[in-house]
C-alpha cells in the first residue's frame, strides 16, 4: 500500500489518472446510448478507423490528432447513411472499418519512419501524457459533455422509443447524426490517451454492466460513469504496481469480471435462461 502512495507522487501517474478519468466519463455516457441504439459494433469500429487516420497523419507529417478526427468524423457521416436495419448497418460498419484498416495498412507500408509511433496509437501511451495534454483533454471533454447534455432529451427519447419520438417530431436523423459525430469526437480524444484497443472497453464495459443493474437512464449513466472511473483508476494503479503489464489488460479484465459477476448475481438474465 505504501508503494502505491509512493507511486501517486509521480507526475506521470497523476497525468495518466487525470486524463483517463476524464475520457472515461465521456466514454461511459456515450456508451450508454451506443448500446441502447444497437451500435456496439460502431464502438469497436471507430477506434480502429481512428488508428488508420492517425497512421495517415503520421505519414503526412502532421499530428496524429488531425487524422484521428477527420477519419472518425468521416466514418460517423458514412454510418449515419447506412440505414436503421441492424443487419445492413452492421455489415456497412464492418466494411467501412475494414476499408479504413486497409488504408491504414497502406499508410504504414509507405511510411518508412519509426513505425512505433503508429503502434503507440494502437496500444496507447497512457503513462506518457503531458500536463498540457491533460488540459486539452479536460476542455475538449467538457465541451463534448455539454453537447451531450444539450442533446440529452431528444437523444434519450429517440433511443428508447424511436417510433413515438418520430411521431412527436424529434428530428431523428439529425439527432442520430449528431450523436455519431459526438461518438467520433469522444473516441478521437480517448484514443490519444488510452490507445485504440482500450477505447472499446471504456465505451461498452461500464455501460453494459450498468444497464443490467438499473433501468432508469440517469441511474444507469451515473453507475456507468462510476464504474468507468473505478476500472480506469484500478487498471492504471495495477499496471503501475506490476511495473510492466499493460493498463489495457487490467481495465479489460476488471470490466469483464464485473460484468460476469453482475450478470450472475442478477440471476443470469441474459447469459442463461
Amino acid at each position, binding site marked *: 500500500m505504501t508503494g502505491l502512495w509512493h507511486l501517486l507522487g509521480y507526475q506521470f501517474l497523476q497525468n495518466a489518472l487525470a486524463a483517463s478519468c476524464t475520457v472515461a466519463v465521456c466514454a461511459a455516457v456515450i456508451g450508454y446510448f451506443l*448500446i441502447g441504439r*444497437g451500435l*456496439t*459494433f460502431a*464502438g*469497436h469500429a471507430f477506434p*480502429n478507423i481512428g488508428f488508420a487516420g492517425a497512421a495517415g497523419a503520421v505519414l503526412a507529417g502532421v499530428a496524429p490528432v488531425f487524422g484521428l478526427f477527420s477519419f472518425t468524423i468521416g466514418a460517423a457521416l458514412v454510418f449515419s447513411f447506412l440505414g436503421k436495419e*441492424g*443487419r*445492413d448497418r*452492421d*455489415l*456497412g*460498419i*464492418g*466494411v*467501412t*472499418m*475494414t*476499408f479504413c*484498416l*486497409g*488504408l*491504414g*495498412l*497502406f499508410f*504504414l*507500408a*509507405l511510411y518508412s519512419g519509426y*513505425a*512505433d509511433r503508429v*503502434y503507440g496509437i*494502437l*496500444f496507447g501511451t497512457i503513462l506518457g501524457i503531458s500536463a498540457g495534454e491533460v488540459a486539452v483533454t479536460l476542455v475538449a471533454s467538457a465541451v463534448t459533455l455539454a453537447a451531450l447534455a444539450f442533446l440529452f432529451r431528444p437523444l434519450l427519447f429517440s433511443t428508447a422509443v424511436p417510433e413515438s419520438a418520430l411521431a412527436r417530431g424529434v428530428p431523428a436523423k439529425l439527432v442520430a447524426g449528431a450523436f455519431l459525430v459526438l461518438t467520433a469526437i469522444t473516441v478521437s480524444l480517448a484514443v490519444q490517451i488510452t490507445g485504440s*484497443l*482500450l477505447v*472499446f*472497453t471504456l465505451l*461498452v*464495459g461500464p455501460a*453494459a454492466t450498468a*444497464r443490467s443493474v438499473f433501468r432508469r437512464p440517469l441511474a444507469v449513466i451515473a453507475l456507468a460513469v462510476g464504474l468507468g472511473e473505478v476500472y480506469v483508476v484500478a487498471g492504471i494503479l495495477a499496471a503501475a504496481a506490476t511495473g*510492466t*503489464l*499493460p493498463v*489495457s*489488460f*487490467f*481495465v*479489460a*479484465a476488471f*470490466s*469483464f469480471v464485473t*460484468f460476469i459477476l453482475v450478470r450472475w448475481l442478477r440471476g443470469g438474465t*441474459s*447469459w*442463461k*435462461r
Partner: protein
Amino acid sequence: MEAIVASETFRNALVGGSLTAVLCACVGYFMVLRALAFASEALTDIGFAGATGSVLLGWSPFFGMMGFGLLAVLAFGSLNNRLRGRDVEVGMVLSFALGLGVLFLSLYGRSSATHASSGVGLLFGSLLSLPGPLIGILLAIAVGVLFVLGALFRPLLFSSIDPEAARARGVPTKALDFVFLLLLAVTTAVGIQAMGVLLAFALLSAPAGAAHKLVRHPLGALLTAVGLGLAITWGGLALAFFGPWTRVPVGVYIASFSALIYAVALVRDRFRGRLEVEEHGHHHEREVHD
C-alpha cells in the same frame, strides 16, 4: 512476368487466396443471413489474442486461434437463444479478448527480447508470405467446412432465413446455430492466416453482403458471393504482383475492392428498393417458402 508466375510465392498466394476467398464467401453468406457481422469481426480479434498467446508459448499461432475461437463460440453459445441482438455480450467477450491480446503481446515482447511490434505482424498478415505447408492445411480445412455446409445446406438456410418457422417444423435450430458458429470460427482462423487479423473480415463480409443485396435467390447469391470474392482476390493479387506500385501490400487492394463492391451493391439496392418497394416484400415471402 513469367518468372513471377513460376515463383512459389505467386503459386501459394494464388492457391491460398482463392481457397480463402471461396471459403469466406460461402460461410459469409450465411453470416449475412444470420446477422452475425459483429460476432465474426469479434472472432477475428479473438483469434488475434489466441495467436499471440500461442506464439508466447512457442506453438503455432493456428492452435491458439482455433482454441480461442472455440472458447469464444462456447461463450457466445451460452448466450440466450440466438446471437441476434446480443451484441453487448459479444462486445464484452471481444473487449476481454483484446485485453488478453495486449497482455500476451507485451509478455511476448519482453520474453523474446524483441519489440512487441514483431507480434504486430499478425495484425496485417499477407497472402504473399503464405508458407507452402500451410496451403495443404488450408485446403483440408476449406474442403471440410464446405462439405459440412453442403451437407447441412437446406436446414441451415431455412433456420437462417426464418428461425421460428424452422423450429416449428422440427429443424434443430440450436444445434445448427452452434455448428455454424464453429464453422465461422474455423473460417476466421483461415482468414487471419491469409489476410491478417485486421483485414480478414473483408473477404468474409463484402462479397457475401454485396451478393445478398444483388441476387435474391439463395443459391444464385451464394455463387455470386464466390465469384465476387474470387474477383476481389485475383484483382488484388494481379495488382500486387504486376501493378506499378510495388510497395503497396495486397491487403490494401483487397480491402479497397471489397468496400467498392459492397458500396456499389448498396447504392444499387437503394435505388431499386425505391422503385419497387412492393415487389421486394413478395420476394422475401417467396424465399421463405422455397
